[in-house]
C-alpha cells in the first residue's frame, strides 16, 4: 500500500509537471540575464569624436562563391539566404569590426550610449551580421520573422559575460540584453536555424564600427594616437597605428588575404 502511495505521489508529480507545462505562453519564457555589476553610475561621457578615420577593408585572393543555404526545414524561411562568412564586393570585405585597441580611450569607464543597438532576426538571418555594442549598452534583439527563433550567445567563459539563450516565438517580439564585460567577437547563433550566426564586439568605449558594402568604414575618434584593430570572424585580425587631430579626416586601409585564418593571427 505504501508503495502504491509512492507511485500515486510520483504520478501526481508528473501531473503537476503537466500543469506546470500548461502555464501561460508569456510566463514560460525565461527572462534574459541582464548586467547587474555594471559600473555605469557616475561614469564619464566619452571625449568628443572630432576626427574621422575612414578607409576600405581590401580583400586579396580568391573570393569564395556565396553559398546558398538550404532552408527547406522551415517553410517560413522562403527568401534565398547566402552564407555571410565572406561578403566581398568591389574587392572590399564587409562585416569586419574596426575598433580602438590601444590608446587613451581604452580601459576607461565611459557611460554607455542611451540608444540601443539593434540585432534583428529578419528573413532567417541576423541583421546586421557583425555589430559593435558598448559594455552596459542596451542590445535590442528583435524577431521580424513569422517563425520562431532563439538567440543563443556563446561568450568566452573567461570574459565574465553570462551566456544566454532566449526564445522569440512571436513576430515582432523584442528582448533586451546588456553585456557586463568587454569581449571581442562574441558569437551568437540560432539553434533552430543552424545557419544563423552573428558576431558582436563588446567594447568599453564607443570607438568601434563595422565595414559595410564594399568594405568601406568610417570611424569617429577624439584627437589622439591610437592602435586600430580590424577583426573578421574568419580571416582574423590586422592592426595599424593612426594619429589624428581635431577635425582631421584620415584614411586608413586594411588588407585581408583569402589565405588568412583566424587561428593564424
Amino acid at each position, binding site marked *: 500500500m505504501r508503495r502504491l502511495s509512492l507511485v500515486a505521489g510520483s504520478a501526481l508529480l*508528473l501531473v503537476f509537471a*503537466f500543469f506546470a*507545462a500548461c502555464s501561460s505562453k508569456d510566463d*514560460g*519564457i525565461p527572462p534574459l540575464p541582464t548586467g547587474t555589476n555594471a559600473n555605469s553610475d557616475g561614469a564619464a561621457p566619452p571625449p568628443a569624436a572630432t576626427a574621422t578615420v575612414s578607409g576600405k577593408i581590401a580583400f586579396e585572393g580568391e573570393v569564395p562563391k556565396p553559398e546558398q543555404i538550404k532552408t527547406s*526545414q522551415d517553410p517560413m524561411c522562403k527568401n534565398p539566404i547566402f552564407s555571410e562568412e565572406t561578403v566581398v564586393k568591389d574587392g572590399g570585405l564587409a562585416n569586419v569590426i574596426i575598433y580602438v585597441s590601444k590608446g587613451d580611450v581604452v580601459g576607461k569607464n565611459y557611460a554607455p550610449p542611451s540608444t540601443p543597438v539593434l540585432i534583428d532576426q529578419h528573413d532567417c538571418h541576423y541583421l546586421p551580421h557583425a555589430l559593435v555594442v558598448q559594455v552596459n549598452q542596451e542590445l535590442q534583439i528583435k524577431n521580424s520573422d513569422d517563425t520562431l527563433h532563439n538567440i*543563443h550567445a556563446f561568450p568566452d567563459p573567461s570574459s565574465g559575460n553570462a551566456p544566454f539563450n532566449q*526564445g522569440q516565438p512571436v513576430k515582432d517580439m523584442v528582448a533586451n540584453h546588456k553585456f557586463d564585460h568587454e569581449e571581442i567577437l562574441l558569437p551568437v547563433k540560432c*539553434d*533552430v536555424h543552424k545557419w544563423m550566426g552573428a558576431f558582436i564586439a563588446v567594447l568599453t568605449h564607443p570607438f568601434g564600427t563595422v565595414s559595410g558594402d564594399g568594405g568601406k568604414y568610417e570611424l569617429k575618434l577624439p584627437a589622439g594616437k591610437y592602435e586600430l584593430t580590424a577583426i573578421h570572424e574568419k580571416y582574423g585580425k590586422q592592426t595599424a597605428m593612426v594619429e589624428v587631430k581635431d577635425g582631421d579626416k584620415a584614411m586608413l586601409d586594411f588588407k585581408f588575404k583569402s589565405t588568412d585564418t583566424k587561428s593564424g593571427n
Partner: protein
Amino acid sequence: MSGNVRVAESLHEEGENIGLHRFALFTACCTAFLIFVGGLVTSTQSGLSVPDWPTTYGWNMYTFPFSKWVGGIFYEHSHRLVASFVGFLTVILAAWACLTERRRWVRNLAVAALGTVIAQGVLGGLTVLFLLPTAISMAHACLAQTFFCLIISIALFTSPQWKQGLPRVSYTDHSLTSIRLPILCAMTTGAIYIQLLLGALMRHTDSGLAIKDFPLSFGRIIPHFTSSHVAIHFSHRVGALMVASMIVWTFYRVRNEYRDYSLLRRPATLLFSLLWVQLLLGASTVWSQKSVLITTAHVATGALVLGTSVLLTLRAYGMISKRVAAWR
C-alpha cells in the same frame, strides 16, 4: 468449489502478470526508441533549440502547434514528447506492478524505475535551463542507460520463464583460471557501462572528431595528447577495444560451455553480433565526419549492447547462481 476459485485466481494472476511482462517489454522498446531520439537531439545539436522547460516557447508542450516544429525544434520537441510518453508508461508499469506483483523486490524495482524516469526528466530540463553543462548532460545520458537496464530487468523478472524458474546449470570448473560466467557477464556489463560513460563524455565535450582518422590516430597508434579532447576521444577507442575483448570472451565462454542453453546462447550471440555492428558504426562515425544518422545509430546500438549484456548477466546469475535462482 474453493479449488476452482484458486485455479481461477491463479489463472487470473498469471494473465495479469503476462500482461505486465508484455507491458514492460513494450516500455523497453519505447525506451530504446527514446534513446535514439535523444541521440538525434545531440547529433543535430538541437538541445537548446527550445530554450524553455517544461514549456516549449511558452506553450504547453502537448499543445505546441505542429506547424512550429521547424529546424532543431523538431528534434528537441519530439524528444520531450517521447520522453513524457515513456514517463507515463512507467507510471502505469509501477502502478500495475504494485497492484498485481506478489514479489516485493519486483515492486520495489518498478518504483525505482519510476523514480529514475522522474529524475531523468528533471535532468533533461535542467540541462536545457543551464545551457547544456557537460556534467548534467552526461548524467542525463547515463541515467537514460540505467533506466533502460531497469526496464529490461523488470521485463525479465516478470517473464513466465523467470517466474517458473530458469533451467539450472551446474557449474563446472573448466579451467582453474577461468572465472564464473555470471561474474564475467557482470564485468562485461560494467565495462560496457563505463564505455557508454566515455561515449557520453566524448559527445558532450564535442570530442567526437578530435581524432579525425581511424583506425590510426593522427597516423599513429597512440596519438600525441595535445588536448583533453584528444585524450577523451582516444580513451573511448581504448574502451572499445577492452569492451570488444570482454564481449568476445563472454561469447566464447557461452558457446563452448553453455551451448545447449538457448537462454544464454541467444543473448550471447546477439551481443556478439551487435558488437561488430557497433564497432562498424563507431568507425563510420569518424569516417563520415559525424553523420547524424550514423552517430545516432551508434548511440542507440550502444544502448542495445548494454541491454543485451544486462539480460545475459541476469540470466547467467539466474541459471548458475543458487542465490539468484531463488528470486522468483
